[in-house]
């Protein structure tokens, strides 16, 4: 829940991007609240401050709706990590990442790291139906397939390899393989003009998760947090070097702070 930490200045920013209904809010919610609950479509964006060791990491949950698409590059500005999220049962959601969302990340830091996350793995992968940690999700697991309210129909689309079974709504087929995601990762590196050898390997940066069961969720966030630490240190170092006095630090004084006095 929002708490005092809201008032603290974040050291680094992580942004969740992806088409609507892929489960960005649920992923964040699973990680921060340790549970899965019904979420409504995110309006605009929301953010959460995570204390990671001595650092504050702000995690921005963006709105996937087309309507808010224009805000994306603002959210991405200065981001140290971007989590590109798709739905493993929906091929379209993966291709949207490349077509629509990748360009939003142009405003991110030049050393920004990218993770590609296929959510809803519990629908297709038996091992994702059990949470890796011992948290009790028993009530969640009883009806994994049935009570899923996600409108598959909406996002299902005829792009290859489209599957007619997803319309039946019984057992959605896995439409995106991990290899597809890894291939996308490679294309992202090329888009960014990064050398594949000196970048983080696709194998490490592609995840399949389930916000519903908690599968791989902690691993995703914690891997990213560990990877952005150097970025924080560099940022702190730069701040330290700069001759500017951080006026935000001396709180309590008025909001109008001028360098010259009159």
């Amino acid at each position, binding site marked *: 829940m929002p708490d005092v930490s809201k008032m603290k200045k974040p050291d680094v920013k992580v942004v969740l991007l992806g088409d609507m209904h892929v489960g960005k809010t649920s992923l964040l919610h699973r990680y921060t609240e340790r549970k899965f609950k019904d979420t409504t479509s995110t*309006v605009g964006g929301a953010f959460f401050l995570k204390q990671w060791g001595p650092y504050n990491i702000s995690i921005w949950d963006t709105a996937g709706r087309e309507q808010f698409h224009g805000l994306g590059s603002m959210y991405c*500005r200065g981001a140290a990590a971007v989590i590109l999220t798709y739905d493993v049962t929906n091929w379209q959601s993966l291709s949207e990442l490349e077509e629509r969302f990748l360009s939003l990340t142009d405003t991110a830091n030049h050393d920004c790291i990218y993770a590609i996350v296929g959510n809803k793995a519990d629908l297709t992968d038996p091992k994702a139906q059990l949470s890796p940690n011992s948290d009790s999700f028993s009530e969640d697991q009883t009806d994994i397939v049935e009570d899923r309210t996600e409108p598959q129909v909406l996002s299902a689309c005829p792009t290859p390899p489209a599957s007619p079974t997803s319309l039946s709504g019984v057992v959605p087929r896995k439409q995106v393989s991990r290899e597809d995601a890894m291939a996308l990762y490679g294309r992202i590196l090329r888009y960014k003009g990064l050398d594949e050898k000196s970048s983080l390997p696709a194998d490490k940066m592609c995840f399949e998760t389930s916000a519903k069961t908690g599968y791989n969720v902690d691993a995703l966030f914690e891997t990213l947090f560990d990877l952005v630490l150097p970025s924080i240190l560099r940022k702190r170092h730069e701040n330290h070097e700069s001759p500017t006095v951080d006026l935000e630090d001396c709180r*309590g004084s008025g909001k109008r702070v001028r360098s010259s006095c009159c």
Partner: protein
Amino acid sequence: MSVKAFELVPAVERDLLMGDKARINIECIECCGKHLYVGTNDCFIHHFLLDEVASPMGKLSYSAQKLLNKYLGLKKPVAELRAASALERLIVLCDGMVFLVDMVTLESVPSAAGGGVKIRGVIAFCVNENPVNGDPFCVEMAILSSKRRTVQIYMVHKDRVQLVKEVSTPEQPCALSLDGYFLCLALTTQYMILNYNTGASQDLFPYNSEERRPIVKRISREEFLLAAPGGLGMFANAEGVSQRAPVSWSESVIAAAVSFPYVVALDENFITIHSMLDQQLKQTLSFRDGHILQDFEGKVILASTKAVYVLVPLPLERQIQDLLASHRVEEALMLMEGAQRNIPKDKFQVLHRRILQRAGFIQFGKLQFQEAKDHFRKGELDVRELISLYPLLLPASSSFTRFHPPLHEFADLNHLAQGDQEKVLQCKRFLISYLKEVRSTEVVNGCREDVDTALLKLYAEQDHDSLLDLLASENACVLADSVPCLEKYHKYFALGLLYHYNGQDSAALQVWTRVVNGDLQDSTRSDLFDYIVDFLCCCSNLDLVWKYADWALQKDSTKGVHIFIRRPLSTDQSELNPDKVITYLGKNKQALLLYLEHLVLEKKIQKEKFHTHLAVLYLERVLSLLSDSSADAEPLTKARERLQAFLRESNLYRVQFLLGKIEDCEQLLLERATLHGKLEEHDKALHILVHKLRDFPSAEAFCVWASSGRDPAYRQRLFHLLLEEYLGGEPRVGGGGELEMAAVDVLNRHGEVFDAVRVLRVLPESWSLQLLRPFLNRAIRASMHARHTSQIAVGLAHSENVQLLHDRLKERKKPIFVSEKKGCHLCHNTFKEPDVVCLPGGVPVHTHCVAQRIKDSPTKRHLTNSSNHT
């Protein structure tokens, strides 16, 4: 969801502005202190004085007094008004022209250069509230010129305006805001940040300003609030980064303002209020024909087309109380902490604490103890507020009254738990752990008694182990309350501790002895009697010691006497000296014995009186056991061993006195022998041992004991005495052989102490050599050994002597001349032989003369003796 954060209060009613003229509408407003300026579509500026009136109920209202209205003469609506109070000017935008009017007279200001101060072709303007230029008598203003795609920066002085900068924009701007060097602009298709100093720009996000009216609102230093697609209120700072999550408005928002921590937005029918802290919608007010919403120095003012209203924020405290009243603790705390900088520091602290406390109680009511504890601690709760929830825990003497207004809604714990005993128990456990933690901190300053007493009551009731720790350490339990409580729960041992802590040892002992006596039941300590004895050992009140010593000795004299034995040595010697104790213990033999043993054996007090007394007590015990024919042999043996050991080891008791006591007792011969030994009447002792007891090993042991620490001659004498006892006297029929065997044994065993020659003289002729072989062997060997040793000694002495002589001669280095002509100094005859003796001084004399002289000297006898000896 809903919080009442604001109240809409009318400020200027319709009749004051335009009366019933239907066509006249409000176009813009400006408020500066109490001065309210309203611009209308008929080119008038109305000037009001706006006074706050607080009703006795605390409700705020406004009274507006019309000061002036002024027609600007342009027949066009007054589009914007801005006050520059330092310059006493109003900046007016009307008919595409910006010009200055006097704030008081509303007269147009003539330019210093003559004519009016005017800027033409203006679409919109804004004033920099955070100018980089620090000159207080000049206002920085940015205008959107009808000249395409430019923004102009002007400095406004009292009587002139000066263009300082002109920057071009990629598209036509339609709304703007300014902070420092940063222009925040709404262009036709997007928002952007533009640094007019460096020309650097930063695109924010796309927005179709033809579809919806853009909003660009500076909300704080380098931070702007913008209307975004989808009815969002987006925050963006000068770097183009959003640091707060957006709020969700309706699509038709007209205007927005910030009144921290809220974002207020106006649409056609409603005023919506979102919190910037959690982005949630907090309040909705219905407002028809809304037209203008602006904040002026923290005051949010709205206008419909016909009237002006003020949106008065409710005191934060009230809002927070409301949240707490509906148990929205988290929200209340967030609001409090979020609004910290809007509340004076001292007031904030008081309020913050109170909210934390209330939050704590709410969580406490939900049995969320960990959270409650955190809040109580952070809120520095007066612990008694919590204690007072538990019936009868606070001492009757406590002056505590609950805080008003109440911090919670519970009458007491029973009310809270609704009769659920499990809940009550959990609450009690929580209080125990909480009090335990805080009692050592400064939180309890001033109410230590209340806290400790409450804790004691809880411990007693819950049968908690820490009760004793509490009472045994520093505490402030109130006696009047604690005593009945401890009695109620049968914690009598603890009660005693409490009395003791309060200096009432007498009462403590009274309670404890009653427990030991079985009058009261308390199983806290099974060894309570021992505890009392220990307690009396250390008790400084001697009256009490004497009083309870009787009781203790009666209960168990062996343990009871420890009251005296274990007493640490202190200054009260005179009060509790051993004589007095011995007299006191007189009747109680067992205790007396232990006490004397303690004095004599442990403390080694060298006093004849104690030693004799102890010896007599030992003796009496032996005698009493002897007289009791039914008694076992075991205790008697032990008692005798003790007696014998003591008789042997102590040298202080009165031997004659004891001897007198056992003289006629035929059973204590060994003891008699020992006593005789003490008196050095060894013959009597040995006689008893050899002839009466016929206990030969004891006789030998006696010789060894009696001669221990003496010279060998003494021991030899004793052994010879023993031998005489064995051999002397008329050989009895039958028994004679036994004595002789004893004699042989002692000779063979202790041969080394005897003088062999003397022994051989007294031995009967008839004894075979074989019988005495070990003795003789040893004797001869000893004799040989002695001889050899002496020879070696002589040799060594001789060599030492020669050595010394040599040294001496060397030392003197003076030849002694002996010739036939020289005479001996002793006999005055001449020397005939070279052998001479030198007297001290190097005088040569005859050898025989010296020998003669030594014979005559007084040391003669000594010399002969010693020569014999070697």
